[in-house]
């Protein structure tokens, strides 16, 4: 609170400058990078058509027609200026691979699922991971808990999608057979049940939750360990702080100390990580989404990259970039509010 107004404005200006520079440079990169790969998105589109129908006659003529339509015959500089201009308007254009769907529509449809899935799993991972980490480090944790937790960390060493396959196999396929039930415990695929209309209705919401449990679990299972280890380290650092000593001398209740003294201090650095995860979450969970046929951004981007669908790659990654850069910006700006020790005066 020692910062003068001028300093704050300079600080804000610098941070905003870095933000804009990052977004611009990244946007330029995602313009250039996909174009580096040999291969023509339109020809690829026609090739996929030929996979369906065997042989596409006059493919060369069709390719030319669509190249013209997407302005791909223009010099790269003109394409770039047009691209930046459109981004500035937040106009993401049409998808090449699935014309005439606009990129906005495709992202608009994928985003809620990804945000839903990621938000729940990130928050759950964060809460569970930090809780477990806190338990691991806390002196008063019963010994059996401390012995039980480390084995669960083994999941941390399994790639997320393998956990997804395993969960799918057990909970959607085998378990109900072993238990002699007629229906699987969890659905095999998709984001909501067959025949349900998306809308604000209990059956729909319940179905979304039911469909979300396995994907969320598979993400949480493989990720919580990282949070737990970080939290444990922070907790142990805090444990050695002088104020912990005083807190015990004060005769406070153990839980009170755990929450108000230990966790509150230990969790601060973790919040930075949380903000970053939230910033990058719009990117989705490619592998998990693919395995559960979850209609989110991960699948969208993965398909777009493999099809070299420039507009979709650019649009979707642009949203990720803006999301990540915003998260970084917000951490810089808001962290002083969370941690009273740090002021804007910092270097």
């Amino acid at each position: 609170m020692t910062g003068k107004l001028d300093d704050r404005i300079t600080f804000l200006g610098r941070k905003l400058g870095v933000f804009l520079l990052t977004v611009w440079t990244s946007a330029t990169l995602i313009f250039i990078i996909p174009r580096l790969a040999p291969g023509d998105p339109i020809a690829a589109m026609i090739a996929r058509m030929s996979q369906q129908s065997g042989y596409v006659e006059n493919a060369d003529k069709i390719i030319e027609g669509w190249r013209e339509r997407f302005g791909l015959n223009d010099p790269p500089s003109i394409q770039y200026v047009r691209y930046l201009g459109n981004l500035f308007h937040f106009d993401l254009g049409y998808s090449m691979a699935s014309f005439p769907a606009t990129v906005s529509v495709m992202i608009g449809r994928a985003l809620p699922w990804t945000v839903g899935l990621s938000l729940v799993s990130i928050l759950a991972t964060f809460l569970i991971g930090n809780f477990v980490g806190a338990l691991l480090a806390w002196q008063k944790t019963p010994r059996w808990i401390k012995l039980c937790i480390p084995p669960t960390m083994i999941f941390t060493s399994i790639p997320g999608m393998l956990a997804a396959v395993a969960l799918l196999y057990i909970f959607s396929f085998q378990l109900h057979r072993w238990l002699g039930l007629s229906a699987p415990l969890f659905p095999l695929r998709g984001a909501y049940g067959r025949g349900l209309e998306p809308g604000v209705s209990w059956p729909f919401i319940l179905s979304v939750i039911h469909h979300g449990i396995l994907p969320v679990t598979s993400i949480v299972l493989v990720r919580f360990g990282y949070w737990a280890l970080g939290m444990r380290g922070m907790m142990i650092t805090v444990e050695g702080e002088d104020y912990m000593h005083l807190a015990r001398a004060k005769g406070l209740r153990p839980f009170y100390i755990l929450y108000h003294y230990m966790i509150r201090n230990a969790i601060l650095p973790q919040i930075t990580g949380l903000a970053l995860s939230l910033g990058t979450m719009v990117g989705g969970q490619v592998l998990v989404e693919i395995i559960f046929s979850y209609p989110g951004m991960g699948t969208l981007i993965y398909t777009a990259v493999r099809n070299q669908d420039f507009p979709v790659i650019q649009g979707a990654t642009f949203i990720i970039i803006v999301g990540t850069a915003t998260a970084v910006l917000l951490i810089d700006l808001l962290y002083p509010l969370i941690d009273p020790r740090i002021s804007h005066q910092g270097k």
Partner: protein
Amino acid sequence: MTKPTRTSRTRDEDKLDTTTSPESAQLYDPDNQDLSQGRTSSLNRWDTPWFNWKLISGTAIVGIIVLIGIFGRFLWDTELVYVGKCPLNLPPVGFENSRGQTGTWSHPFGTENSGRDMLALTIIGAPNSLLVGFVAATIGIGIGILLGFISGFIGGLTDDLIRLLAGITITVPSLLVLIIIQSLVEQIGLFTMATLLAVFAWPGPTLVIRGQVMSMRESGYVQMARLSGASPLRIMFGEIMPNLLPYLAASFIGSVSGSILAAVGLETLGLGPQRVPTLGGTLYFALEAAALLRNMWWWLGIPIFILSLIFMGLLLINLGLDEIANPRLRKATE
């Protein structure tokens, strides 16, 4: 006042020397250490922080995998990892597959649906995964150290630039870049793969090392070194580096497992090296062939088990190194 000669003294005496400074009557120790720490370390030669069971067991696990990679090829015909060298879909010894075939000792871990021997795959694939991770991490951490030191030590515009670069690398989705670079590269081998992964392995270490260097730059002994006219290089590598060593080791190991995970992810999407047997590649084939459904658990299970072993080993090493770098963690686990 008699100034004691330092050369012949032990560390303990030096300590004593400072505890009773001639300036005041205070029995003052700036660290306010209590008896439980500090002294113990120098009293027993086996009591060094590096003698840490997590570090040792982790190293042992990773070491065993490396040894299997080195000596396994003398004990087992590793040509069997290639397509069509064995009967298809055999289960491990003692099990039966869905067609009623039983496992044989000529393929003790079973085979998969292209006739690759799972034991040979393990012998070749596990060290390959480690190799990719180590190479990628070496490059990544190398760049991280270089840029982190430059950034943290020089500061100013250079610092801003490096941070920006790191920020951009973090924001651009790696999958996109990796897939595209792969299409530009003629043939993907282990080292190409590792180099590709290193492109995304450097920003993390760079930023963290930068932070550490910046805080160390302000610390007493570095200031002292600077005042005594040491060159920046000497300060970097003579003063700061040794103090960062356990920390660097830990983040190197972290980077190894991160790179292995990334490599396995790419391989599992079918984007790995072609004729080089890798664990991720095996998973790709297994998933594409619905191995779980076919009850060919060994096909997925063996690579997952090996990967878990590798990750567990690395995790243990990392935890051990963490404890060495941060004595409080050590205290908490004793």
